[in-house]
């Protein structure tokens, strides 16, 4: 989304401009309101929330809900807070993202610079795999993870996320490398450089932009996944999203809304930070996933 502002702007009076800005601001409120409500109410004591006004700033500021959400709120049967699940998610996300991105890079390299008879078919199969509803793989996957001894483990989830991320990572790198001059690869080949040498010396150094896009895309998807987590995880591998859902839905007795909000923000924080720090790349990934370039 780099293009300069175009000349197709409506030539309108001051009144038109006011209407435009009003609509834009109303929608800003619409998008920001839930975040604002969660944030302010996570800093209020529970009585204040029950008492009423959800839009008001806290009268008695407190960070107790955050401490509870992080380290001692009841999740399922354990009063552990979200911390262990946050760590589970990290241990799941980091390897899954790195492995699927590396494989995607190599796949993209082969598909564009070393294509062979049948490589288009392989790409077609990988591409179509991006869109399957994951419900279709839940039953056999549960069985295979059991057979492999990975049921309920973080390694099992890493495997699952790596496999179902391959389609997109390959797609991203393939589209990027397709625009990379093949003559450079051929020239290096004539000079006697091998398959991996060419990848490392020539393609890898200029792959930073697409690597960032791919890593952000994979990170967001794996971190935010719920279905695989709820289907295949056990106590010591449950990811953050599933733990958050347990926190919100399982608390017996009093519903501690402020703790729920603090927990929800904690679960959203990693992807939000990534988005704030590198929003440009995030958008590029979304678009690449939607419109094959």
């Amino acid at each position, binding site marked *: 989304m780099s293009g300069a502002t175009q000349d197709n702007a409506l030539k309108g009076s001051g009144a038109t401009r006011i209407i435009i800005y009003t609509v834009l601001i109303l929608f800003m409120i619409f*998008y920001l309101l839930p975040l604002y409500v969660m944030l302010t109410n996570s800093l209020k004591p529970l009585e204040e929330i029950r008492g*009423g006004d959800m839009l008001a700033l806290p009268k008695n500021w407190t960070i107790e809900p955050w401490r509870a959400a992080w380290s001692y709120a009841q999740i399922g049967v354990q009063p552990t807070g979200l911390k262990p699940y946050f760590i589970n998610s990290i241990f799941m996300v980091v390897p899954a993202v790195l492995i699927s991105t590396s*494989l995607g890079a190599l796949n993209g390299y082969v598909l564009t610079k070393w294509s062979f008879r049948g490589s288009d078919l392989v790409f077609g199969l990988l591409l179509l795999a991006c869109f*399957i509803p994951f419900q279709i793989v839940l039953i056999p996957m549960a069985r295979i993870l059991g057979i492999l001894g990975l049921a309920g483990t973080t390694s099992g989830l890493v495997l699952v996320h790596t496999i179902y991320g391959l389609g997109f990572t390959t797609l991203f790198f393939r589209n990027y490398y397709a625009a990379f001059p093949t003559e450079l690869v051929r020239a290096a080949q004539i000079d006697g450089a091998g398959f991996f040498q060419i990848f490392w010396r020539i393609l890898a150094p200029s792959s930073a932009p697409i690597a960032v896009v791919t890593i952000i895309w994979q990170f967001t998807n794996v971190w935010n996944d719920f279905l695989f987590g709820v*289907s295949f995880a056990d106590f010591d591998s449950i990811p953050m999203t599933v733990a958050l859902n347990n926190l919100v839905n399982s608390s017996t007795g009093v519903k501690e809304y402020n703790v729920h909000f603090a*927990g929800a923000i904690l679960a959203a924080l990693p992807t939000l930070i990534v988005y704030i720090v590198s929003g440009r790349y995030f958008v590029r990934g979304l678009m690449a996933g939607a419109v094959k370039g």
Partner: protein
Amino acid sequence: MIDRFQNWLPRMVLAPSFFLVLIFVYGFILYTGYLSMTDSKMLPSYNWVGFANYEKLFRLRHWNTAITNLAIFGILYIGISSAIGLLLAILLDQKIRAEGFIRPIYLYPMALSFIVTGTAWKWFLDPGIGLENTMHQWGWASFHFNWIKDRNYAIYTVVIAAVWQSSGFVMAMFLAGLRGVDNEIIKAAQIDGATGFRIYRKIIIPMMRPVFLSAFVVLAHLAIKAYDLVVALTGGGPGRATELPATFMYSYTFTRNQMGVGASSAIIMLIMIFSIIVPYVYSELRAGGKR
């Protein structure tokens, strides 16, 4: 010798991904398809029953609810997200000074997990504590908004939360499309005396057809897959009023021990998605080849 090795190396590099996807995607699809034709209950069984599960599926009230809900949800979600996305993109394209500040605000919900979105909206829409209660506090005693607790309206709250999450992304797609429109065409129209919204209605919006198509494909496939949001927002309730195919599949397979029926519902979901995605991917790849 070395040359032959170099020849095989690319295939060997691609092979692991190929076999993983072949087994874990296409093999699994076949396996689930097979299970959908057996009398599997809690565990897979290999007793062939033909299409009995599918016949049973379409007689189930829950499944019909799920399909009806998907139709309501899908149409409104796609329609409203596209409308808001297009509107915001056009407004943002009017040389807005603070565009760089506004755009990320529209888009950030896309970075959130549906579980987070569901948690936020569940509470916001809860009449006892959220919007309705706040309006009462502010003195608007007759304000009434309890859709999330109402069987007939709960599905629309799922639409609200889903639109909140995705409409900014649709805006980004349309904005990219608008920025790609050739200036000359607009200048020519202006010379011909066309102005303002007429140019948009008659010239620019019709040129956005590929973006509409992409947005439709992305949103439709998200709608069919929608699972987390319903779980977090309504838990499928009240009753089973917000059941969607994805939640149906999960509960029939893993909690009601009707694996055969669950598998057949998964196959129907796959058919729905592929009937949208396959033609799209095919035409995109062909267009890509021609370019």
